[in-house]
């Protein structure tokens, strides 16, 4: 027996020695994911301070063009941005373009309001509103939004509201701002932190064909359990929204509004159940206050006090220019004599986005 093993070993020795080469890769392969995640965190950690505001050089004609708009009362335009980077992914805009838009807002005479003030406005309290108020919001709580926007907002004396996805914070996803940073932002007085979703900022399958709809907008379908009942839908959505509200209570952050993920609370094509929209909208308004969505043609009027919305926001896209934003603001300005509905949409039309 012993000699048999020896014979086998003698035969295997050399092939085994060759196998050492690929085998030596195993520890490297095991560690590779760790290295990658460490690197992501490293980049996240050391690349988190705000970027310096880029110089904005508006041309003389732009200076002439972006004249101060007529003062208005009883309405507030609401803008929504998603991210500030150079990805040209449709929704993120470059820091340069963002800075130009903010500079334009300053020239046009706008003053950004806090979400608390906007909340009072929604409930009919117009006291203390500036002559040209505007609400600037960011969806998703992305790090790149904060990095790109913070110094620009500071330079132009503006402020913004950040709607965050708390599930991503819990996952420590380095793409998103964490609680420490969010609190720091809020303390700076330039930012308000508001809820966007807990785990509900995803698309789910809603039928056997595999069609996708937003988490809050439709009854889910799964191959094993079939279409979820409306009661199950209610449980799922309510649990997510209650958790979201509870997390904000734990963070001691006052909640005044909710930006609905994908701008869809079941109103688009009636979800896949007509009961969804009234249930979900009611739940959102009761839990969070004003509910924000986007506009199908991206040409919403300025928001007015409705006691909780849903209010439509004007959405910035990758290709949006300051001139386009100015055109919309001017066209929708309730005090402008030449205000005509739809004037701002000539240059662009965008569907409601994420």
């Amino acid at each position: 027996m012993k000699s048999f093993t020896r014979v086998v070993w003698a035969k295997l020795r050399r092939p085994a020695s060759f196998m050492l080469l690929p085998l030596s890769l195993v520890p490297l392969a095991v560690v590779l994911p760790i290295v990658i995640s460490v690197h992501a965190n490293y980049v996240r950690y050391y690349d988190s301070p705000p970027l310096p505001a880029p110089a904005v050089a508006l041309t003389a004609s732009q200076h002439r063009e972006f004249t101060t708009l007529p003062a208005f009362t009883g309405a507030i335009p609401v803008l929504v941005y998603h991210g500030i980077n150079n990805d040209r992914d449709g929704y993120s805009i470059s820091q340069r373009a963002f800075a130009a838009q903010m500079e334009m807002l300053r020239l046009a005479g706008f003053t950004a309001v806090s979400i608390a003030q906007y909340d009072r406005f929604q409930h009919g309290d117009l006291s203390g509103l500036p002559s040209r108020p505007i609400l600037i919001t960011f969806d998703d709580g992305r790090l790149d939004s904060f990095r790109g926007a913070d110094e620009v907002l500071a330079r132009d004396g503006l402020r913004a509201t950040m709607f965050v996805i708390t599930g991503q914070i819990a996952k420590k996803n380095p793409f998103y701002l964490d609680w420490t940073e969010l609190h720091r932002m809020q303390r700076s007085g330039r930012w308000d932190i508001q809820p966007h979703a807990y785990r509900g900022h995803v698309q789910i399958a809603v039928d056997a064909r595999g069609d996708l709809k937003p988490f809050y907008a439709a009854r889910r379908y799964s191959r094993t359990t079939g279409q979820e009942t409306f009661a199950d839908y209610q449980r799922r959505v309510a649990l997510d929204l209650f958790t979201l509200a509870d997390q904000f209570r734990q963070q001691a952050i006052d909640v005044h509004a909710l930006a609905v993920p994908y701008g869809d609370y079941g109103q688009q094509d009636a979800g896949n159940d007509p009961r969804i929209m009234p249930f979900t909208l009611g739940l959102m308004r009761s839990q969070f206050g004003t509910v924000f969505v986007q506009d199908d043609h991206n040409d919403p009027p300025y928001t007015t006090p409705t006691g909780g919305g849903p209010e439509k926001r004007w959405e910035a896209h990758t290709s949006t220019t300051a001139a386009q934003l100015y055109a919309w603001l001017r066209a929708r300005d309730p005090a402008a004599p030449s205000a005509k509905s739809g004037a701002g949409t000539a240059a662009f039309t965008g569907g409601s986005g994420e």
Partner: protein
Amino acid sequence: MSSAEIIRRAVRKQLSKHYAVAPAPSPPRRSRVEPSADVDATLLALSEQNGVSDEQLAKLTGWSVDEVGERRAHAWAKAAERAALTGSPVAPVSEAGGRTDGAARLVAGAYLLALLSAVLYYKSAFLQMITVSPFLSMYGLVVVLYISSRFFFSAFYRTSKNHGIEPHVAIVMPGFNEEAAIADSLRSLLELNYPANSLEIVAVNDGSTDGTLSEMKKVAAGAKGRVHVINFPQNRGKRAAMAAGIRATEADIIAFVDSDSVLDRDAMRILVQGFHDPKVGAICGHAEVLNVRQNWITKMQAVRYFVAFSVNKAAESVFSTVTCCSGCFSAYRRAAIMPKLDWWENQKFLGRESTFGDDRSLTNCVLRNWKVKYEARAISHTIVPSTFKQFMRQQLRWKRSWTRESLIVSSFIWRKNPIPAVCAYVGILLPIVAPVIAVHAIVMMPAQGGGAPILYIMGVYAMSLCYGLYYAARKPRYNHLWVYGILFCFFYLAFLLWQTYWAIATTRTPSWGTRPSTVGLNSAEPVQLAS
């Protein structure tokens, strides 16, 4: 069997393979081999011309099949080298390694390059760390750059051309209580492929209390005046013995060969070719581990020696600034050492006489004003420590002399080419900083909640893998020994790293720690590995 006995047998065995000095009985079938032919030719003749298989050869020689293959590969390399040197044609019957060896080596080489690039890429991806934790990240960056630079510069290393010069060489061999091996060692030197009238041997008996002197005299009597014996009635130390040997000869080139080292027959002839350049003051030969198959400790050292010589020394040689001409086998120009000989013999460090580290110290004397080269084709085979205790002691001794001589090197290397100067300073700094970093990574960081030191360990692993792969890629016949390169680096991390401060604190100590039983222990330091 004591380890000394094992070593003695290994030397005898090796000598008997190379030279006709073996009184040991050999198997009858071996008698058809020309007894004085060197082992290379023998193996070639047996395996190629007579169609003897490796298995049969293994039976004949008592080696393992693997070893036969390795030696055959080595023999071909040797034959090719000899042909290149002497201009005589060699019949290229087969490649050094088989086709699988070639493929495996290619894979190892490509793997090495990929790994080095990956590590550099990794470092560049974390470059910004320098602004956050400058000390730690600079250290990591410097280690990576230092190691890559060794590989990079060694790629430019070229062996010296054959100028056909045969200067007058004297081999100085001091001996202290080495009765058993000294005669074999001396006779093997007489057998070197070098003109008899240009090669003399100076044997110095350093007050041995055994029969070393009579063994020396016995060899001298049969050597037609080529062996001179100098006798110290009292033990005066290795340096005194070496200095006396140097003074006793008029030869232009003084060579030192460890009593534990065996030279290839052509080694001396190849080594001296570099002296064709009149600015070259010293040349260091290549050392392979003779008792490589003995156990895991010697296997580790085999990889370490190979890398230390083929990478580190070769890299230094590109700039003619080899900082340590290993005592295993090296040669000096007489004119380069004579001015410093008295100083060297009585070198004092912090008021105490420096005993060990003679090779590094002598190299430093020459390096100040001369070029110092490394010759990869001049190969010696040396016996290395095979027990943990011996190995640790030897390493401590090397570290002590390394500390002392590093201070001396630092004082003048900046006047040389800036590249080797920077490398030398970095090479001195790294081992001093390394233990701090290791403690920080392995103890402090996890204690502060920084998590397991996975990345640090992986860094060590990647470095060790580089060394191992280099060994695998460069050896003519692929074998598994390269894995011991990985083992060595972790051994270094576990045990040797921590000696540094103790060595610095006790640099002045004159104790060899191992004398009088120097067998297997006076092989000199190849070079410090950065870690």
